[in-house]
């Protein structure tokens, strides 16, 4: 037993979060940046295997399970945790917010290093709580969005818990067996429950609803952990893949990119792109072969880098201009060159331009869809599969929307007045991540070495993956050209488009009025029964005891009675009546 496995990382990070909340601002953020950084060498060197097994509530659990998948997650979580704390410090985040953010980071560590379903769902739910607190901390419009976020994640977590319980009933253990979740109803419930976290189409509305609203530094944390832990959970539940999930991934890639194109709020646009990019990962997990899974996790790793970078650049623009709307920005490239360059690197990465890290990992997923997946109904007469076409189409949409973002924010027109560029801390954070994006793009071997499966070995994957082949580069450039053409073709109509309604325009009112109707129905029904019975009783006694007065009253109009002012408070007599009826019914039922 190595000393590295004595304490699970979640304990260390949560303890740090508490200290960060107490200490003065500067040492707090220094500590907050240091501890996730320590997770990087720890993740690389901790021995594989299941550690810290114990019994909890009478069930066998493992608080620390290390394999190549959790190792990769721990590594990237550590890197981005450090960068995001540095960025928080530079962006004037309060201590308490950073403390909430670190507790969110810590519980994410807990989830990806869990060795059993019980521990996983435990930290999964805590992630929902801590991230909600992180959103709420910004007050204002973030509070209501936080409520919707919490509610949806509560439902998703409950579905996943139901799946895990049935899995337990079927298997007799919560431990990971390597076979995923029991097929049938548990698998379906798990897919939908995890689907909330990864943003399945129809369950995704919380993403663009929540992520644009909190503090700019909070968005950097949020864009990383929940959805990627979801992808990780999806892999644990479906290690063999699933055709429907793969197609859902393809659909998400297209849907997210398309809706991103309609947006003018910067962070809202980026949030739709989370859905789109997570679509590639979900597709990789759904395909289920070693090549596709390696691609999915390579994409998790790269996506965290460039998406955090994108949220940082958007954050800097908001920080300096106070404006979220692309229609009110423009010409910032001259004012903020560092931010513009960082944005360009991130945008080329996410769009999968040759030479950047997104090109490498997206290529692996597409190769997986090409070589390891059924052709499907729509091949358009080529040797490409339907899923591959969906992923390529998502790529075109990504190019289009990032050309739009860059054009309107940085290049279009001139900005009135002068704006300062990113401050020193923000610059360090952005440049560090930008260097990684380019580094992994130019030297894909370094990325391959941390993947769970070696994509360059013929004995491991069905088709050896080479990053820079003529075909791949042509494909990348063709997507870019298609994106450019597409943007200029749709620029006019898009600029006239108002806010496009998403599914939440439907289900927010449905949930709200549905809940209200349930509450009203229960209370009003009870009140109505109450009123009816009391009125009937009092009328009866009155008629019997004061017949003359009743006759007189019949001529006059009815009068209001004070005793009906509190319809929900049953009187003594009514309560006894209910009791008598209840016992009588019980005896009737039993006899």
């Amino acid at each position: 037993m190595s000393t590295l496995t004595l304490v699970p990382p979640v304990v260390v990070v949560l303890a740090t979060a508490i200290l960060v909340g107490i200490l003065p601002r500067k040492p707090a953020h220094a500590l907050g940046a240091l501890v996730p950084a320590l997770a990087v060498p720890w993740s690389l060197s901790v021995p594989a295997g299941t550690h810290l097994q114990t019994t909890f509530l009478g069930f066998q659990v493992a608080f620390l399970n290390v394999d190549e998948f959790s190792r990769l997650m721990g590594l990237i979580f550590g890197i981005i945790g450090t960068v995001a704390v540095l960025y928080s410090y530079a962006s004037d985040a309060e201590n308490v917010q950073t403390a909430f953010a670190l507790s969110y980071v810590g519980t994410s560590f807990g989830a990806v290093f869990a060795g059993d379903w019980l521990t996983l769902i435990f930290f999964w739910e805590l992630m929902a709580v801590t991230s909600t607190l992180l959103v709420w901390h910004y007050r204002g419009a973030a509070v209501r969005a936080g409520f919707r976020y919490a509610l949806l994640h509560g439902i998703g977590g409950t579905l996943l818990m139901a799946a895990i319980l049935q899995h337990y009933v079927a298997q007799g253990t919560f431990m990971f067996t390597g076979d995923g979740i029991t097929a049938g109803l548990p698998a379906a419930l798990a897919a939908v429950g995890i689907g909330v976290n990864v943003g399945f189409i129809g369950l995704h509305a919380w993403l663009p609803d929540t992520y644009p609203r909190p503090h700019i530094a909070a968005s950097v944390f949020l864009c990383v952990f929940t959805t990627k832990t979801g992808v990780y959970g999806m892999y644990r539940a479906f290690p063999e893949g699933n055709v429907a999930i793969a197609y859902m991934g393809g659909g998400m890639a297209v849907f997210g990119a398309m809706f991103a194109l309609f947006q003018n709020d910067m962070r809202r646009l980026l949030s739709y792109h989370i859905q789109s990019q997570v679509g590639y990962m979900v597709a990789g997990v759904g395909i289920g072969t070693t090549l596709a899974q390696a691609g999915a996790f390579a994409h998790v790793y790269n996506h965290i880098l460039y998406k955090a970078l994108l949220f940082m650049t958007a954050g800097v623009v908001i920080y300096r201009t106070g404006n979220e709307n692309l229609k009110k920005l423009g010409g910032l490239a001259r004012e903020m060159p560092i931010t513009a360059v960082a944005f360009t690197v991130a945008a080329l990465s996410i769009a999968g331009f040759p030479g950047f890290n997104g090109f490498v990992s997206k290529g692996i997923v597409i190769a997986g869809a090409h070589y390891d997946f059924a052709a499907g109904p729509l091949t358009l007469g080529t040797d490409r599969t339907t899923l591959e076409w969906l992923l390529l189409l998502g790529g075109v949409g990504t190019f289009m929307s990032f050309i739009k973002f860059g054009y309107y924010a940085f290049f279009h027109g001139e900005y009135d007045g002068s704006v300062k560029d990113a401050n020193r801390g923000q610059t360090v954070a952005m440049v560090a991540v930008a260097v990684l994006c380019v580094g992994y793009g130019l030297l894909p071997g370094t990325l391959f070495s941390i993947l769970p499966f070696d994509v360059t070995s013929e004995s491991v994957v069905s088709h050896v993956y080479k990053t820079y082949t003529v075909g791949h580069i042509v494909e990348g450039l063709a997507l870019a050209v298609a994106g450019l053409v597409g943007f200029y073709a749709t620029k006019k109509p898009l600029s006239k488009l108002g806010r496009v309604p998403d599914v939440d325009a439907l289900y927010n009112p449905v949930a709200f009025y549905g809940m209200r109707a349930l509450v009203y129905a229960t209370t009003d029904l009870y009140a109505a029964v109450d009123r009816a019975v009391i009125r009937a009783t009092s009328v009866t006694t009155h008629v019997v005891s004061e017949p003359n007065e009743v006759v007189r009253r019949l001529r006059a109009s009815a009068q209001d009675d004070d005793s009906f002012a509190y319809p929900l408070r049953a009187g003594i007599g009514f309560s006894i009546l209910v009791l008598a009826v209840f016992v009588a019914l019980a005896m009737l039922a039993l006899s």
Partner: protein
Amino acid sequence: MIEQLPVLLVVVPIVGGAVPLVASLVSNRSGWPIAALTLAVHTALAGWLAWAVGTGGTIDYAVGGFAIPYGIELVVDGLSAAVVALVSAVALGLLAYARRAGPRSNAFYSQYLLLVTGLSGMAVTGDVFNLYVFLEITGLAAYGLVASGREASSAVAALKYLIIGTVGASLYLLGVGYLLAVTGTLNMGDLAGKIAAIGYGSPLVLTAFALMVGGLTVKVALFPLHTWQPDAYANAPDTVSAFISALVSTVAAYALARVLFSVFTVDFLTAVPVARWTLVGLACVSIVAGSALAVSQSSVQRMLAYSSVSQFGLVVAGFAIATPTAVVGATVHLLGHAVMKGGLFAATGVIERETGASTVNGYAGMGGRVPVGAMGFSVLALAMVGVPPAIGFVGKWYIVLGAVRAQIWPVVVVLLASTLLTLAYFAKLVERLYFAEPTIYEGEDDAGAAPVADGGDSPVSTGMLAVVVGAAVLAVALVAAVPALEQTLLETLPPLLDQ
């Protein structure tokens, strides 16, 4: 000595309860120290008893040396030991709250100790008629305590509580009468055997079951027999609210479980499925309706009261499912709910005294003004929702697990939905406390706050805050005691749960 412990648990508080009345001749301020001394002894004895049951198994005691089953028998197994330990601990802890907050007369402390007598007696007795006697002692003391508030509404609430509670207890007594008529015995262990011999289909047995369970359901306050409960909880003085919300319904639910498992037994529930499904159905209705009523309240104390209706639905569902896992869960939730709900009521008292806020809207922004009280309230609220690692999570978890293993899927759905429903009203309060603009500002509430007695004292004492914080800590720390409790229950309850 160990055999005498059960009877001492009843004798000590009843003797202690008589002392303040006599002491009033000398001083009208002597109630608190006498109660503290009595309850310290009581807690020590209860702790000893729990330890003895945990290590040595069930303890019996024949009162007055009369032969069983003719004399009264006291029986303490894991379930009763846990409940009596809870009663002692909560009663002792709340004294710290009562010193500043509570009615201060000696008569109050006499009633307080009398209530402890009744509750302890209900927990340790092994005789159905003796249970009725202690049920009435508990009831009378509780009616008196509710009426000890200064407002007229306290008296009305107490009257309502008295009439409904007495009718409920009378129904229970009627059921006991039927059982006596058909079996000729009142001893629980003896009854279990004789009822089985007569046959579970006998109309007299079935009638007795309906009357006894119906009567106890009133005391537990399940929907729709809960009508006395919100008024009583919301109109009583703060100390009393915390005390009775923590213990009175809890011990009544214990009595219900005792009647189910020790008198009628699980075999009865299996032989008469309609009895089990009626109870499970009633519990499920209670969970949903209680939560819905809680959501619609504007007064925080009434909201907490309706929340009890919902939570006791969970407990009764666990007992009615009657598998070992579900019973362990129901017991854990029963004990955990007592600590959490008592703590929540204590916290509402602190917040109201400090700021005058008593409604959901009034709670806005109070997180900053009453930091300790609001933090305790939030921790307890989240624990009640079932956020791990709090005790509320463990109890619900076992109940859900029991329902899953018994494959009663509709109940599983209701249980899981209950978490969301609980979240619905507690999240609203926590959000108000911390993330909303205040509606009551410092200074403007002076007229509304409770009058400050004894001149310069602050309305909230350290002891009161300690009770809130202690409840919040216990709501998490009690999880550590669950394995021991589970083991003791499974060791001492097998004859009841052996299916």
